[in-house]
């Protein structure tokens, strides 16, 4: 898959632009339904440095999506707080964009792909010509040059997810939150999209927080892996990954460091799952 990034996006590198850091401090979430309390997670503490890819990994049902909704400001945490660029987060902010798992529903079927990408800009009040130009550039950046005139449902699943990423880029966010973004596409497309994320990170210097249940995906993408497990969930391990910035689906995954990190994460998840079962 061809990956071209235009001048416009290339000038936005990590040196020239001050980047936003994301801090998660003692975060906890408890739901109350019918008078019963369900504690989803507690005491989560981690940071996302500018330009870093942080993957949150954990078994299904551990509360990853709830966590991501708290990080994005869609959901209020019960305890602790999230701060972005030093300011506490209470609602969605322009520094942050979310790419949802369900791309087919997050793109509006009555808008052409270009209109979808430009929609947040329209809301910001950006003039028509300008938004069109930015939308085309964002689409080019994700390898969808020329697809803007089509409706989202005329695109394949992988292309729709690229369009959703393009929308986040056009929004000019510093932090990209992704909720199981590649869970609904086939394996080959998934590899392409993973490489797209790494590519965008290194060229644009954006930071990415990606939630996944796939340990391989987490390690392949991440500078830092946050492992969630248990009930209520807590962070059982934070693994820094030193695989460098240039990664490759074939060679990176064969490196001893990759294999080691993989074993470590899996062991942590299993051990904590066993403890939950035993209790």
């Amino acid at each position: 898959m061809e990956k071209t990034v235009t001048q416009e996006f290339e000038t936005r590198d990590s040196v020239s632009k001050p980047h936003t850091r994301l801090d998660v401090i003692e975060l906890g979430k408890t739901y109350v339904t019918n008078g019963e309390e369900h504690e989803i997670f507690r005491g989560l503490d981690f940071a996302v440095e500018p330009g870093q890819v942080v993957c949150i990994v954990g078994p299904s049902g551990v509360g990853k999506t709830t966590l991501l909704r708290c990080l994005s400001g869609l959901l209020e945490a019960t305890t602790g707080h999230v701060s972005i660029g030093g300011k506490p987060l209470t609602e969605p902010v322009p520094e942050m964009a979310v790419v949802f798992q369900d791309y087919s529903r997050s793109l509006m079927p009555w808008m052409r792909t270009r209109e979808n990408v430009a929609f947040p800009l329209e809301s910001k009040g950006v003039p028509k010509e300008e938004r069109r130009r930015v939308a085309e550039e964002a689409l080019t950046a994700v390898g969808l040059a020329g697809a803007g005139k089509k409706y989202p449902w005329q695109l394949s699943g992988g292309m729709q997810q690229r369009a959703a990423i393009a929308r986040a880029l056009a929004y000019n966010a510093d932090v990209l939150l992704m909720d199981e973004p590649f869970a609904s596409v086939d394996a080959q497309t998934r590899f392409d999209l993973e490489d797209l994320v790494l590519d965008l990170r290194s060229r644009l210097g954006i930071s990415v927080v990606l939630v996944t249940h796939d340990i391989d995906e987490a390690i392949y993408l991440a500078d830092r892996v946050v492992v969630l497990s248990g009930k209520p969930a807590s962070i059982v391990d934070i693994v820094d990954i030193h695989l460098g910035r240039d990664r490759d689906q074939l060679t990176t995954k064969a490196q001893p460091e990759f294999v080691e990190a993989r074993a470590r994460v899996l062991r942590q998840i299993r051990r904590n799952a066993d403890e939950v079962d035993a209790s």
Partner: protein
Amino acid sequence: MTSITTQLKVVAPPQRARLRLRLGLARAAVGVGIIAVWWIAAHFDWLSDQILPSPFDVLRSFVALAFTGSFWISFLQTLASAMGGLLIAFLIAVPVGLALGITPVLERMTRFLLDLGRSFPVIALLPVMILLLGTSAAMKVTVIVLGVVWPILLQTTYGSRRMDPVVRDTTKIYRITLRLRFFKVVLPAAAPFIATGVRVAASVAILLSIAVELLGRTPGMGHSLGQAQIDGRPDIALAYLVYSGLLGMLINWIFMRLEDRIIVWNALGDKD
């Protein structure tokens, strides 16, 4: 066991033409069969002429009616009052429905009332309406509006209320303004539902129009049909019945096309 219609889609053009011809012939054969049985039943007086006239008498009346001005006047009266009532109901129901749809409190407060209104057989209001407004065209249109406002209202409310959670999150994350959210998200999402409501309402409007004409002695196809039956001309009554069926089909077809155009993204999107 492949069917004619599925075969139509896969085979080459010359064969397709042959299959289409076969389908047409089969359909015609069914029609001829129905008429033959009907003719035999009428010819041997299984039922009296007053009950079942010969199909050829009905056909003769059917053709003859098309050349009379009074038929076309009653046809237009039925059509105009149905469409007029539909338009008024549309203008009332869509704004109200949208308001209810985006204001959950209002929607909950009026739910019971809407259910009551929807299940109320409006035609039962006819005697009261005749007392109040007489057997006028205004009375006819009023009854039609009262009857067809509900399907449009309910569909509009439903369509604007059920916002996909992912869409809701997306508009929040990108901080989409209220105005844009209404015109570019809520309204397009509700449009297919409104269109369905209007299509359903259109056939109800024709039905009510004919019912009011029949019972309220207001001019229109329903009145002409009832009068023909009372005058002992069941052939003319049946001809009107066929015309009313054709009118119903026509209206349904037109609004179906309209609906298809409005939900083009849905129709195509579903093919995936």
